[in-house]
């Protein structure tokens, strides 16, 4: 019952696997040591949670649709959990963005997801920048990503949609947020929205500048989530939100997170306009009131790194504004 402990473990797990985020290298995971939990969200949508990003699973008479595929070493275990819900073919996979904790399982799931009823390999949808980054040279001399893991149904326009298991599924591109290839996935009848790492309620948003991320884009993405979601009575429930990492949410939870990023943005813009250097900004602790909720002093994404990325992102914008 004491969810404080399990939440801290959850955060530690995230920070450890975040280490793999920046490059394609697959972390060494022993699947036997990993607990995957499948939970019903709403309608025909479920979420598979464990180490790595949350995996959204939609099931029905037509088979299985997925949002993200987690880490490669866990693909077999993940598919075993999915098979408990539905034995039909995996027909659609959407990648919310390029990072390994969300796309590492692509190639394995594409194979494991095929059944006798499969007409062909699953359609692996992603925004075109995901394909560009996966097919191009990898940073820090990391090995190229095998073609089997690349999206085979990339989209260029603001949205892409398809109809599956009696439900419209709409994919929205959110430019330059967490990365430049982010997608939101909205299961309309089930009224569930998967956000990828644009919304990660247990830590500051990772702004991956190297892959086209930005603070203003992140805020636009959060506002877009709030536009899409509709709460039930008294601002609770209604459209359910599956974050990239962390617990199940709804609009009200996204509003708190959006407010945090917006308020911090306003503070940093003011400091930048006053000509403060990055060191001066860090010394002023502009995120002190949120650090005890979202901050970290160790791991791949510390508070300082968030402030640094935001400062650079906003400085570039502020310069281009002039």
């Amino acid at each position, binding site marked *: *019952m*004491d*969810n*404080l402990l*399990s*939440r801290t473990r*959850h955060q530690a797990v995230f920070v450890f696997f975040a280490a793999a985020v920046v490059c394609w290298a697959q972390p060494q995971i022993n699947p036997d040591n990993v607990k995957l*939990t499948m*939970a019903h969200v709403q309608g025909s949508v479920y979420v598979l*949670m464990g180490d790595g990003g949350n995996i959204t699973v939609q099931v029905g008479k037509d088979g299985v649709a997925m949002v993200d595929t987690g880490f490669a070493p866990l693909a077999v275990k993940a598919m075993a959990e999915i098979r408990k819900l539905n034995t039909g073919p995996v027909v659609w996979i959407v990648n919310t963005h390029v990072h390994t904790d969300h796309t590492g399982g692509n190639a394995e799931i594409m194979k494991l997801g095929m059944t006798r009823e499969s007409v062909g390999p699953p359609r692996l949808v992603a925004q075109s920048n995901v394909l560009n980054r996966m097919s191009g040279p990898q940073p820090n001399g990391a090995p190229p990503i095998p073609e089997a893991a690349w999206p085979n149904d990339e989209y260029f326009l603001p949205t892409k949609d398809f109809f599956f298991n009696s439900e419209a599924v709409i994919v929205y591109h959110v430019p330059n947020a967490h990365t430049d290839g982010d997608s939101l996935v909205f299961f309309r009848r089930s009224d569930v929205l998967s956000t990828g790492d644009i919304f990660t309620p247990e830590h500051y948003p990772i702004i991956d500048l190297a892959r086209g991320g930005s603070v203003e884009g992140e*805020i636009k993405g959060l*506002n877009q989530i*709030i536009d899409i979601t509709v*709460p039930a009575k*008294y*601002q*609770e*429930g209604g459209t*359910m939100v599956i974050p990239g990492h*962390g*617990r*199940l*949410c*709804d*609009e*009200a*939870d996204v*509003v*708190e997170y*959006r*407010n945090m990023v*917006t*308020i911090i943005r*306003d*503070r940093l813009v*003011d400091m930048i306009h006053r000509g403060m250097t990055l060191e001066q900004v860090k010394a*002023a602790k*502009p995120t*002190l*009131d*949120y*650090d*005890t*909720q979202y901050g970290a002093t160790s791991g791949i994404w510390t508070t300082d790194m968030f402030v640094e990325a935001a400062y650079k992102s906003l400085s570039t914008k502020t310069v281009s504004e002039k």
Partner: protein
Amino acid sequence: MFAALLAVPAFAQVDFTGEWAPLYHEDGPERLPGPELGDYTELPINAAARMAADTYDADRISVVPEYQCRPHGADYSMRGLGNLRIWQEIDQNSQKLIAFHTHMLAWDSERTIWMDGRPHPPAYAPHTWQGFSTGVWDGNMLTITTTHLKVNYLRRNGVPRSDKAIFTEHWMRHGDYLTVVTVIEDPVYLTEPLVRSDNWSLDPGQNIGIFGCEYAPEVPRPEGTVPAHLPGNNPYLREFAGWYGLPYEATRGGAETMYPEYMKKIAGEYHPPAKCSRYCKCTSLFDCNLNSK
């Protein structure tokens, strides 16, 4: 002569069900018209909570549309407008008590307090304004534990309460009075548990109307605007200390200011005005305005 009241010592009261009217005989001005800016007294808050409150702009409730119909959390409800109805749910087959249910005036909020020993949901489960509550008896005192609470507030002047809080209550009925002890543990914003208690009076004639709430562009601002003061720029934080002659440090709250020995520390710095001029009366909804005397 009121000796008749003494007649027979009380039998234990064990029935919480019924209609309960809140008594505002403690902290009336803060609980009714609302707290003043910069008043963080009696709260064991940390620096993060203080900065969140210092940078809070009260227009946020009108400008952020999603805040307009945001209810009080289960914990704040016990301090807020708390006309309360409590009823039992009994299992038909076993005739056992499954749950207590409450309905509260503010935002028609309803809670279920499970009494059947069911576990709390896992950490990843959705959080709600009223959270997930289970209750156990301790003699005739009901002890309730609530988890899975959405982000809310400790006070309506910006002092936050996080979604990592755990909320414990102890319900005690004495004659026609209900006392509820509330204990808020919040690792994000409090340095120690906040323990308070509030009281209700049995009121069978009470009729809790419909609260109701509709969204509307109360104070139109561009979408995504979140009114806030920049750190260090809130000009109103010293008003409260000035109005009541309090040393500014004492108004900043914190556990140290809540223990008796703090009285000596500030004794020499307290310079009250000659006469009360703000909220001098304030015991009910109808006599609690700035100038009510």
